């Protein structure tokens, strides 16, 4: 029994690191997509800066109030196996949406995974539906709307104020501004998202009895979570970076600056006031807003696909989390957790192999947008 618990804890540690890695490469698009799309930074330099900012951000604030799913599932129902299955759901969703090039909230995926596992483990009464609505569903609707409004106003101001500026000054200014604001978004991401996984690991250690109740986050947990997210960011989720940077609008430097500044302002404000807005949804909304602010056409079809992905994130990850928990419990013991971990590994491997058929790399991430992802058949822009 003790060996089984230790194995599950070991797998939770590995999966937490894996989740942070997927979180990093999934969300690197948030900060750097527009900076790469406008050519302000070379792709690898951009993700390098983002990785460093994420690493620094993870160490900036260690007040781990970000215990995952707090207020969303009854904390008494959270066992180490629930955390394990929740992580499986979160990773599977992140990898699947990365393959499709669709940005989605990593936090919502992890929360969905935990909800699904909790539903199988303890039933519907263990899920705090009021918390699900107020912390996930309503913010998911509000985030893109608020961000789009702020970005549209910022874009309008940027074009109006610099219309008489020389091309050289404007070019240099927007480049510097984009690098600054993108770094700020990366920093905010590091402080928020790395902490969530630190919270998961701390929770698992407490549940396993390896850490006393109320104990602080061990330094090794902080270190591995920060490094995993930074490495994931540096590897770069090029498929999502391409969708965000090239798929929504044909972005220009003033729009890049305005959308990043709006994203940074909304993320920092909501974070300060305790309103949990998803970084991914804020950045996507900002990019659309920057298109509307300059009366530029927006590819609503691509945005529509994103919205559908956001709507499916919670139930999709919950389904995987529930299935992972059910399979673990049905087989039982060490074999159960090992089988689920192997299935997840096979799924990730399969997705990676399939992604190589049509790879998106730093070399082609800025190619013109096409409906199919191929080199022709440009999708129509709709104003």
């Amino acid at each position, binding site marked *: 029994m003790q060996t089984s618990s230790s194995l599950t804890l070991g797998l939770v540690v590995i999966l937490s690191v894996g989740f942070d890695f997927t979180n990093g490469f999934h969300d690197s698009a948030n900060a750097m997509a527009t900076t790469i799309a406008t050519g302000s930074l070379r792709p690898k330099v951009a993700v390098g800066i983002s990785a460093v900012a994420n690493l620094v951000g993870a160490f900036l604030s260690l007040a781990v109030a970000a215990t995952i799913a707090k207020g969303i599932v009854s904390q008494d129902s959270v066992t180490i196996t629930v955390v394990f299955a929740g992580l499986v759901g979160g990773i599977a969703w992140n990898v699947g949406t990365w393959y499709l090039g669709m940005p989605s909230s990593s936090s919502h995926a992890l929360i969905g995974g935990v909800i699904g596992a909790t539903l199988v483990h303890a039933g519907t009464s263990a899920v705090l539906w009021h918390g699900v609505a107020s912390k996930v569903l309503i913010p998911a609707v509000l985030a893109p709307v608020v961000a789009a409004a702020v970005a549209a106003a910022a874009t309008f101001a*940027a074009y109006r104020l610099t219309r008489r500026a020389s091309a050289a000054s404007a070019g240099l200014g927007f480049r510097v501004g984009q690098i600054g604001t993108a770094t700020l978004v990366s920093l905010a991401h590091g402080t928020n998202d790395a902490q969530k996984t630190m919270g998961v690991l701390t929770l698992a250690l407490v549940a396993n009895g390896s850490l006393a109740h109320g104990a602080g986050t061990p330094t090794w947990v902080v270190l591995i979570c920060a490094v995993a997210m930074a490495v994931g960011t540096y590897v770069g989720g090029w498929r999502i970076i391409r969708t965000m940077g090239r798929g929504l609008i044909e972005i220009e430097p003033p729009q890049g600056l305005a959308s990043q500044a709006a994203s940074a302002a909304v993320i920092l404000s909501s974070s300060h006031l305790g309103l949990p807005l998803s970084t991914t949804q804020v950045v996507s909304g900002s990019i659309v807003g920057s298109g509307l602010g300059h009366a530029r056409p927006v590819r609503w079809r691509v945005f529509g696909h994103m919205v559908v992905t956001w709507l499916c994130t919670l139930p999709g990850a919950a389904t995987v989390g529930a299935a992972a928990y059910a399979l673990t419990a049905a087989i039982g013991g060490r074999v159960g957790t090992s089988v689920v971990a192997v299935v997840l590994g096979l799924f990730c491997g399969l997705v990676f192999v399939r992604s190589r058929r049509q790879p998106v790399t730093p070399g082609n991430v800025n190619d013109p947008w096409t409906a199919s992802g191929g080199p022709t058949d440009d999708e129509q822009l709709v104003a």
Partner: protein
Amino acid sequence: MAISAAATPLLDAGAMVRVLALSIGFGVGGVAVFCLGIWALSGSGYGDPTRATSRRALLLVVAISCWALTLVAIGLGLWAMLQKP
């Protein structure tokens, strides 16, 4: 517990309004101030020795002030983030 949870509103409207106000202030205001700096630098003819010195100096001061203000705003934003509840 269930009763208190149900009594809590689904959305903290006050917090939402404050988020919107802060976002417009820092986001739109920040971009406007930063772009004013770009305009001032451009108008100063930075690197162009044929421009009148007094006008160049004035606009350069405006540009530097704008960017200093932007840095202060970023600093405030970071401070606010680290003070989150």
